């Protein structure tokens, strides 16, 4: 299952960091952050609860880049 989320982040490098953080979250199969379109496309692992996973993704992203937001 793939879902797209709007995000807000200021710098391109931070976007790359968010991408890594999202990828390394449990329940996420793959993630792409599109800095120019300010979007995060998350592919969830089968059976994962998107909402719960996204909460973790946000938490992990905040860890690497404090000044970021994912609009869930």
């Amino acid at each position, binding site marked *: 299952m793939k879902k*797209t989320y709007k995000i807000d982040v*200021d*710098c*391109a*490098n931070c976007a*790359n*960091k968010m*991408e890594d953080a999202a990828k390394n979250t449990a329940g996420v199969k793959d993630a*792409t952050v*599109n*800095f*120019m*379109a*300010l*979007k995060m*496309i998350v592919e969830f692992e089968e059976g994962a609860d998107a909402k719960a996973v996204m909460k973790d993704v946000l938490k992990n992203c905040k*860890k*690497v880049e*404090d*000044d970021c937001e994912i609009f869930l």
Partner: protein
Amino acid sequence: MTKKQKKVLVRIIIAAVLVIALQFISVKGYVRFGLYMIPYLVIGYDILKKAGKGILNRQIFDENFLMAVATIGAIALGDYKEGTAVMLFYQIGELFQSYAVGKSRRNISDLMDIRPDYANVEKDGELEQVDPDEIEIGTVIVVQPGEKVPIDGVVVEGTSSLNTSALTGESVPREVSVDDEIISGCINMTGLLKIRTTKEFGESTVSKILELVENASSRKSRSENFISKFAKIYTPAVCYGALALAILPPIVRMAFMGLAPEWGDWVYRALTFLVISCPCALVISIPLSFFAGIGGASREGVLVKGSSFLETLSQTKIVVFDKTGTMTKGVFEVNGIHHSPYKDEELLEYAALAESYSTHPISKSLQRAYGKPIDKNRVSDVEEIGGHGLTAKVDGKVVAAGNAKLMKKLGIEYHDCSHVGTIVHVAIDGKYAGHILISDVIKEHAAEAIAALKKSGIEKTVMLTGDAKNVADHVAAQLGIDEVCSELLPGDKVEKVEELLTKKSEKDKLAFVGDGINDAPVLSRADIGIAMGALGSDAAIEAADIVLMDDDPLKISKAIRISRKCIRIVYENIYFAIGIKVICLVLGALGIANMWFAIFADVGVMILAVLNAIRTLFVKKL
């Protein structure tokens, strides 16, 4: 500017004024330190705060942390002015970057401003604005002059001209009237149109295109992946380099050379390193170039599904075409009438009337060429002879129209045609009355397009077609195509492309251009699939990597030139930014470049790289 950006701008101005003012005040010691702390904190408090949080989250190689270390280090060494200035310029750079990115983001979304906000539905004689998402298939919607067509459909009432430039880049308006299909995203220019929708909003052309463009830069190119990998290695490497620079040379000087360690000097050089350690210029300019390139291309009616495809397209050396619908119009037209004792119009009239009951494409083209309404009362006793043609009575005369076999069967002597195409022989009352040549028409710009491809460095052009050899060879010769493979079944086309793929070198890429009708497998098999005239063809939009919105073959070379420009700028930025950084690092290590130099170089490179990246947006004159 956003609120956030304005706030930073105000802080930059205050800090800059304070720093300049401090140049005229001569104080020493703690007072001087205290005075410099004011602009430093004004400009840098958020960076320091973020750096603190970064440490708590163990993000040591975060650029905020690096900036904090570099500036605090400089201040600790007594270089208050430099410490403050580095922070100031860093913020100026960041502000410029976020402004430029925001600006191009808006620019590109303006370009693709085709999203309709509402659809008009007539209710009790009055128009009501409804969310297009809620319109069901088969609803009649009203589009007034100046409005966007929100959903694909068929015109049921009214005539108008449509501006399709937002979709195709084509400036000539398209005329529509009753029963014409109409695609969403066009702007209705002159008359009121009533349209019966044939698709849901989500399935309509406009939604498909928006989805495609918005998700485009998610498929990252090799250069983008390279840069994000590079950034991951670069920052830590420079930081460890800085650490080594601060510690090793003084120790070596002390232990082995018997010189004074000069700790302050080496620490200063190390701090200069840290200033250059931010990979911003690279990380921002590469995706920005691709984003702008894709945006610029879409304004020209070339939709690119991802930056990786832009990269592949730029390396294309072989272009393989489908014939029908790509190089030719795919509609059969009457191209000549020969050997007829009758007037051309007269013969055409007989043929068109005789064929008036048939729906065969050939009959259709005869009727189209005749161009006048057909009075079917003049036609009787129609007899179709499968694979031959037909006979019918027109105005009491027996008209036979069909191929050579029909003429032989009827025992009528006929003339062969020297031209290539489908020949309709006509006999009236048992006497040969000449033949009509019907052939597919080569697109206006086809030959020009092939020449343009050659000029832009395409080494080989190949045409694949299911058509007869003589027709294919004739078209290829007219267009100047290098290689032709004719009489292919759809499956053969895939094989042929695979053969070409194995023959070429790994570096050169092969592009296949088709109209999306039955060539989806080939589109996906080629290194890069280009579908043309794809407006409204979902299968083609799905299967292709690049979609040409109108069916002008000249757009192929244009797309290639756009991709080349984009990739060239990407490489320029990569070499330029990495080059300047390496030079700065070397000069910094040698003690030639000071912190001023480092921050100017860093911010300067970033600004130049961003400006260069924005150049990719301008593709009109390519």
